[in-house]
């Protein structure tokens, strides 16, 4: 059902209904395996459900479409924290059980359970801490932060946490140990996401998403609950694959994304060749409007700048005006444009753009040669020719939109500042390119009125 935008919504509702049934079923039908007792503390359970439900609905309804990646990251963190908390409580329960065992009796039979608890705690808290940092970074509240030897320290912390977990499996009675694992995993989660650049955030969120899935599956093992297990593993597998797909779209390995911190080591290289790039040419609004309305095909390349300016609606308006003048207007969407895969599609869909007009990268690249004008709105790295020509560039090898095949390229940007990845873009200095400076929304509004007057 998810393979088509139209039926996907139904699929989502079905999933939501399934979840409701699973929750209600657990509340009313669950029986303890040994004693056969029903659950109690209904007041607490329903209290929690209502509080969480109300806050969740309000937050999800209020959030702006541009802030969607943050929201997903935040909710993901909640799930991770939930899994970690379950592990904590279950361990507490288990250690009471062990303590009450007669002296000398082996608790070897409990070891797999302890292993699962430790895993759930480890993965859940890494996912929680990581998601919180990712949320802060997407919000712009937390800046990239890295220091020498961070990777080694990270690996050391991870190894230590895993080592402690292994020790815990053998000696499942130490309370100090479980809190040590909790603390280590939280710190690891923070340091793990800290140095990763904003351009790679989508990959990280997807990865953390699959982590939480695995943590949920651990819970499924713990309670021998098929629903949790199935859901968790499904998300874990799907999330991992999605992560890999995204890495492929950027032509980088997962290891490269996680270890090679993007912004830091590239800044020097970019500024070194920045001076020799010569002049760029500006275009006036009326000229831009003229060439667009007299061309037969216009391709719009949206980027995060469009999202920031909230210009998706006015962009659609321009599309309609141009279409009314007999111009074919299409959108070329790079898989990693924006801050999440498919982020641009969602934004344009919000503005009522027909999704059949949104071309994926390969389709768009086939059509650029027959395009008269390419209008780039706040996109930068996804059209940077350095990805094809300059092996020294940090984005070298990333597939890009070949906007240079078109007859004219008009770039709308707020300034000449480099894009999110911090790399100079050669495209802006090419003879075919003309720059149209200004906030995307303002520029598009002016373009609309200019085109109308022609």
């Amino acid at each position, binding site marked *: 059902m998810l393979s088509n935008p139209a039926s996907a919504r139904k699929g989502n509702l079905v999933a939501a209904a399934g979840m409701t049934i699973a929750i209600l079923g657990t509340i009313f039908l669950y029986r303890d395996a040994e004693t056969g007792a029903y659950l109690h503390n209904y007041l607490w359970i329903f209290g929690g459900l209502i509080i969480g439900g109300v806050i969740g609905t309000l937050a999800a309804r209020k959030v702006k479409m541009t802030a969607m990646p943050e*929201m997903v990251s935040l909710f993901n963190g909640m799930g991770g924290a939930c899994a970690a*908390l379950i592990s904590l409580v279950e361990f507490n329960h288990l250690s009471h059980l062990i303590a009450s065992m007669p002296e000398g009796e082996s608790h070897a039979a409990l070891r797999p359970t302890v292993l699962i608890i430790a895993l759930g705690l480890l993965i859940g808290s890494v996912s929680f801490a990581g998601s919180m940092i990712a949320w802060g970074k997407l919000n712009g509240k937390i800046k990239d932060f890295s220091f020498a030897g961070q990777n080694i320290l990270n690996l050391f912390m991870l190894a230590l946490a895993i080592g402690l977990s292994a020790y815990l499996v053998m000696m499942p009675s130490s309370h100090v140990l479980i809190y040590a694992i909790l603390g280590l995993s939280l710190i690891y989660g923070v340091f793990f996401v800290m140095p990763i650049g904003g351009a790679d955030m989508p990959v990280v969120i997807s990865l953390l998403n699959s982590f939480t899935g695995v943590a949920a599956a651990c819970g*499924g093992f713990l309670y021998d609950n098929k629903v949790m297990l199935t859901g968790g593993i499904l998300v874990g597998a799907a999330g991992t694959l999605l992560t890999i797909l995204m890495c492929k779209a950027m032509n980088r390995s997962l290891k490269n994304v996680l270890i090679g911190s993007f912004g830091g080591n590239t800044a020097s290289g970019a500024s070194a060749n920045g001076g020799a790039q010569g002049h760029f040419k500006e275009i006036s609004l009326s000229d831009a409007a003229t060439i667009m309305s007299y061309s037969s095909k216009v391709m719009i390349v949206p980027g995060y700048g469009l999202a920031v300016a909230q210009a998706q609606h006015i962009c659609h308006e321009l599309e309609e005006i141009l279409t009314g003048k007999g111009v074919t207007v299409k959108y070329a969407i790079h898989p990693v444009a924006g801050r999440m895969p498919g982020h641009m599609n969602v934004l344009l869909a919000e503005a009522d753009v027909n999704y059949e007009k949104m071309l994926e990268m390969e389709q768009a690249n086939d059509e650029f040669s027959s395009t008269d004008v390419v209008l780039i709105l706040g996109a930068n790295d996804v059209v940077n020719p350095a990805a094809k020509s300059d092996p020294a560039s940090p984005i070298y090898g990333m597939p890009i939109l070949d906007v240079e095949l078109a007859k004219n390229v008009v770039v709308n940007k707020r300034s000449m500042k480099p894009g999110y990845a911090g790399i100079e873009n050669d495209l802006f200095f090419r003879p075919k390119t003309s720059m149209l400076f200004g906030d995307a929304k303002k520029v598009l509004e002016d373009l609309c009125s200019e085109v109308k007057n022609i």
Partner: protein
Amino acid sequence: MESFLQWIYANQQVLYIVILMIFVGIEVIGRVPSVLHTPLMSGANAIHGVVIIGAIIVMGKAESDNYMALVLGFLAVILGMLNVVGGFVVTDRMLEMFKKKKQ
């Protein structure tokens, strides 16, 4: 080690489900166009909210004098519910936008 082998034996069926689900997961993603990757991610995000079931069980089993379990469990239920509800609502909002154009 023996206890682990025993455990694997006892949970054979469950492990089969795990393997099956890995394949289903891969199959599902392979078919989704990149247009839908954002809703998909948030949909998957909602689905792993099933952890809430664990939270409910923890909560429901807690003795009424075990305050640590009660407080932590209560928190877990709230967080889990946030994940589930928020995830589904966000996904629905995104997909709704795709649908509007159809009519």
